[in-house]
């Protein structure tokens, strides 16, 4: 029994051996350790060159094999199944294939295995064995073949260092491209499912519909499952909570940034700044728990005390706590922006007799305004995309209201509720989550890009 892990281990071992063989060979070619100066590169480079040439092709083969192995084996096993099973609908075949895979992996399956399934399972295991052995043989052979060729070619003039450096260079390039692939991956995956959703629900209905109730009736006589996908109430809820959060975060964050950068002495800053940063480091799930446990009941009781009917999952509680989460974000960015304003501007204002606060209000803030706007935009994008606080403290019902004491729902809450738990991937209910995700991504992307451009322009202005 050869497992893929063993194969990987063997390959790594071979690569390690290749290093030493290359190293020894180069020393031998030079004619002993005292003559290595005659080589083009230092001996470790020859070792590294041999190892890279051996390891990379073998690992590439290994990766491809692992990616396609399961599909090929499954197809072969399905082709070997009796006709009456192969003629079943695709989803049932999938179930059977799952059973076979689980059996082959030694897991327990729910249904009793029939004779046919047992046979298919042993077929599957046999094929898997063959495939693993073949993988070990092929990859190992490639490794050894390359090793023989490369070590044969090593001579005093082989430019080993240059080869190694070129390979490393391309590795660096491919690592930095991953960021681009991530973005492409996000766009494609979300877009693909969203397009499937928009085939079932028209775009206009999604963007302008006033009713959101994504539960779809499985039977036609079911009650309370209308399946309406008008996202306006969800957007309003998101905007309402974000607005409350920004109403808390912007003044407090901005004022603390001003105090920190203009008034506070060194000791105060040394104590208060790290403490403010703790606020930024607390996980959002903790804020969410705190909002649901302490803040929401507090607000509800306070509301009752003055005779207001406050929902226990009010937008106010979620927005308030989210605002506090964002304070350090606003303050640290604004702090940077205020510090970037040149001292000459302040000195000029002082020379005219302005007080410190007048200088700040009439000179520093207007000068730093673009940067502050940029940081507030980034904070808004963060508020819109924030998930855990609203999942735990805001509600699920999509009310079209601007009353902060009522329950509202947000885009992120809906994505989580639609996708957590069992999913079927062809129902609009699940796909709706991806449509919402697409929208969320686009909106935050726009906000981020505008903010980044504004901030960059601002920084250049004073450099």
């Amino acid at each position, binding site marked *: 029994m050869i497992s893929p892990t063993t194969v990987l281990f063997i390959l790594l071992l071979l690569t390690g051996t290749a290093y030493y063989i290359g190293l020894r060979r180069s020393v031998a070619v030079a004619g002993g350790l005292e003559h290595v100066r005659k080589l083009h590169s230092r001996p470790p480079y020859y070792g590294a060159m041999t190892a890279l040439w051996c390891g990379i092709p073998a690992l590439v083969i290994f990766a491809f094999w692992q990616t396609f192995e*399961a599909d090929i084996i499954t197809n072969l096993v399905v082709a070997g199944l009796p006709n009456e099973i192969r003629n079943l609908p695709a989803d049932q075949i999938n179930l059977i294939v799952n059973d076979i895979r689980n059996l082959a992996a030694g897991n327990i399956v729910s249904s009793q295995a029939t004779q046919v399934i047992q046979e298919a399972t042993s077929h599957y295991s046999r094929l898997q064995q063959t495939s693993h052995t073949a993988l070990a043989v092929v990859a190992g052979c490639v490794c050894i073949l390359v090793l023989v060729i490369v070590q044969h070619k090593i001579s005093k003039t082989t430019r080993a*260092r240059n080869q190694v*450096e070129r390979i490393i*260079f391309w*590795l*660096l390039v491919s*690592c*930095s*491209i991953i*960021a*681009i692939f*991530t*973005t492409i*991956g*996000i766009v494609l995956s*979300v877009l693909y*499912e969203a397009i499937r959703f928009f085939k079932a629900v028209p775009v206009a209905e999604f963007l302008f519909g006033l009713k959101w109730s994504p539960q779809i009736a499985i039977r036609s006589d079911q009650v309370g499952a209308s399946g309406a996908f008008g996202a306006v109430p969800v957007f309003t809820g998101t905007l309402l909570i974000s607005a409350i959060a920004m109403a808390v975060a912007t003044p*407090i964050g901005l*004022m*603390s940034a001003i*105090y*920190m950068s203009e*008034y506070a002495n060194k000791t105060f800053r040394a104590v208060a700044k790290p*403490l*403010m940063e703790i606020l930024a*480091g607390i*996980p*959002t*799930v*903790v*804020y*969410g*728990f705190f909002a649901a*446990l302490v803040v929401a009941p507090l607000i509800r009781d306070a509301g009752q005390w003055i005779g207001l009917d406050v929902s226990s999952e009010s937008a106010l509680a979620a927005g308030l706590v989210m605002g*506090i989460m964002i304070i*350090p974000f606003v303050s640290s960015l604004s702090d940077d922006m205020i510090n970037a304003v040149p001292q000459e501007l302040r000195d000029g204002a002082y020379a005219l*007799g302005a*007080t*410190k*606060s*007048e200088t*700040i209000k009439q000179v520093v803030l207007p000068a730093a305004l673009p940067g502050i706007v940029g940081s507030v935009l980034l904070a808004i*994008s963060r508020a819109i*995309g924030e*998930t*855990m606080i609203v*999942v*735990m403290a805001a509600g699920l019902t999509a009310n079209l209201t601007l009353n902060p004491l009522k329950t509202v729902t947000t885009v*992120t809450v809906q*994505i*989580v509720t639609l*996708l957590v738990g069992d999913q079927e991937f062809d129902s609009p209910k699940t796909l709706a989550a*991806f449509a919402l*995700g697409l929208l*969320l*991504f686009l909106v*935050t992307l726009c906000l*981020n*890009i505008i903010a*980044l451009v504004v901030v960059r322009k601002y920084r250049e202005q004073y450099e």
Partner: protein
Amino acid sequence: MNSQLSKISDEGVKPIDIVKKNLARRRRAERRFRRMGLVAILASLLFLAFLFLSIIGNGYSALFQTDIKIDVFFDPGKIAKNDPSNGDYPGIVKASLQKMFPDVTGRREKRQLYKLISSGAAFQIRKMVLTDARLIGEQRSIWVPADDDVDMLMKGHLSRQDDTQSGRFDPQQLQWLDQLEAEKRVKKKFNITFFTAGDSREPELAGVWGAVAGSFFTLLVTLLLSFPIGVASAVYLEEFAPKNRWTDLIEVNINNLAAVPSIVFGLLGLAVFLNFFGLPRSAPLVGGLVLTLMTLPTIIIAGRAAIQAVPPSIRDAALGVGASKMQTITHHVLPLAMPGMLTGAIIGMARALGETAPLLMIGMVAFIVDIPGGFTDPATVLPVQIFLWADSPERAFLERTSAATLVLLVFLFAMNGLAVYLRKRFERRW
């Protein structure tokens, strides 16, 4: 201003008088403004204190658990002879309770009596028998965990009067408890279960260890992938990349990815890793992959800053003595930039440790009792465990949620403290 100026010429008032007249008002405004700034900072710090106090206040009692001493007779009639793992262990617990309270006879009352003890008692006795078969037929008194409601009552989180009225407790149950207490059969001990067990539906049997192990495996995957990739990208972008549209695109991409909502990464993981590549649900491997994509921008940005901080004279000197560009970087620039890069990596890991939303999307939100032992075992992570427990209605889970939050915060503080230490220890001014 104009009217004031005209006043000057009309009435012969000197400008200095106007300034003096307004001075008091302007000073007041100055003080007011200054105080507003101070209040803003104090408000956020006050909130921070409030948050910590309420979580600690709710959570510290989870460090203790109420235990009840019962006299167990390991009845050979209730344990299968050849296979001690098979036996009526709940029956043994019930029998010993009955012996302690012989006057309880009614069906309903018996059920109330059994409710005082956690269902974990039966497992505890079973485990004892499995480790030492000689116990069968013996009589022992052992401490078993009390039921969560009893635990809450003993800790004072539930009130005798109110919760009897609401029907949570039977008046008789309270009587029995008093009797047990009088016999010194009730004690509070350090709650080891909380730190060694996996999740459970019973609060008194639930622990964070499963989630900690899940977090460990997830973060290990994240660290092993994101640190090398992040360092490599940072090196390329800082040292090799030409200034052109292509590298501009990569830069904008990285900056933007750092600000994409985390839940979107969860959607990506669901669509690509689970549905397209068919990787297992709830596995730390997939969680680690998603968190890698998420933390990569942080690590790249920190890495670039660290490389920028290495003065060009170091590079020039290395190049001057004949090192190649790659040798300059691997032998001189990277070692000098490493503390900064490590600090960035630790901060990125701390953020990944606290991240919840994307992991909900890839099924790490399942109820998992077993402690994960590998990268593909179903697992959950600490913040998701907090989320799961926060949803539970039992009063005892509230205490455990707060305690799990404390555990998470301790880990975060340790990581951030390490980052601060590294920065202080290795920071260099050139």
